[in-house]
């Protein structure tokens, strides 16, 4: 049997989100955390680790990119720069 694959996420410091850094193979969650610690944090890269079974991640299909994300391209009224504010009003 193949050893399961885990995706590794590291929080560099409090205040930042966990960020994906790569993957490790490990038989169980405890060993995955130990392996992730050895492989991805040898130089103080983080304060916290997440490991997630790779096959538990549900991802959008890159082929659906346009269907999913293109519609927002025309909705420029969602951005503050769409609205005119007179200079006299100052920063808003």
């Amino acid at each position, binding site marked *: 049997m193949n050893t399961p694959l885990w995706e590794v996420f590291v929080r560099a410091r409090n205040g930042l989100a966990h960020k994906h850094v790569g*993957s*490790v193979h490990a038989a169980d969650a405890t060993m995955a955390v130990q392996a992730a610690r*050895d492989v991805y944090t*040898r130089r103080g890269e983080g304060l916290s680790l997440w490991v997630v079974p790779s096959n538990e991640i549900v991802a959008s299909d890159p082929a659906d990119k346009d269907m999913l994300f293109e519609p927002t391209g025309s909705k420029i009224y969602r951005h503050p720069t769409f609205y005119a504010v007179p200079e006299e009003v100052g920063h808003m």
Partner: protein
Amino acid sequence: MYSQALNTEEASSDISPDADRFQACIDDEQRIEPNDWMPDAYRRTLIRQISQHAHSEVVGMLPEGNWITRAPSLRRKAALLAKVQDEGGHGLYLYSAAETLGVSREDLQDQLLSGRAKYSSIFNYPTLSWADIGTIGWLVDGAAIMNQIPLCRCSYGPYARAMIRVCREESFHQRQGYEIMLTLCQGTTEQKAMAQDALNRWWWPCLMMFGPPDTDSQHSDTSMRWKIKRFTNDALRQKFVDATVPQGHFLGLNFPDPDLRLDDASGHWQFGAIDWAEFRAVLAGNGPCNRERLEARRKAHADGAWVREAALAYAAKQRIAA
């Protein structure tokens, strides 16, 4: 460490709207991510290059591991241990990047252990003295950095990201190697002779690390067009020689090349002819240590089998108990 340009690259004959979009994306300096459409030849080239690179890191632990128990001081021993551990880590970042292309870790390991996969020729040379550890850090890692910095901008995202991590860690390797050489060269006559002997043995194999001359590589333009590769073998080799020769002279060492001279017009160091027959022999499995290296990897894998089995059995038992 790194994987040299020993890939036989594949010509891409894909003409489709997908292929056009793919190339346009690359021309626009965008990155390709794991689930994006890509030509089969691009995928195969990357799997081969990244896995050979990973194998090189892992096999590269062996020549240096040879000196851990004989390092001359605790400081040197701690540094060498950390370096060898880094090489193992680099191998794992790279296997992880290769796996995003749809190949399994077990297959990749099997390719190495069965002798089907190649790894960098440099690790088939023996480490005969402590000065070899200095020389490997200074020259082999120096050559690796030359090759790897452009790979940080490789078109394939996971490979480029792994290379950024590797390069960040690699500069400690080169500096610790040079420091070993500096200490030896400032030491006794015997110590300096040891440093010179190591340079004599490693210089030419290091130049071979960059792969065959540009005139010999037939499909180099495919990898360039795909932005997997950004500089030719000869361009990187010249860059390495130009950077390294003054460092060697500072140490007071002589390069084992009577033709080495500074060309005033171009500002480049010109060097003598490389023995490509030796390079081909080492790649074909007939270097000084090819068999020893593979045997060491096979033994490590076989000796660890019971640990892998026990860990999986324990995990299965815990799942049942839960």
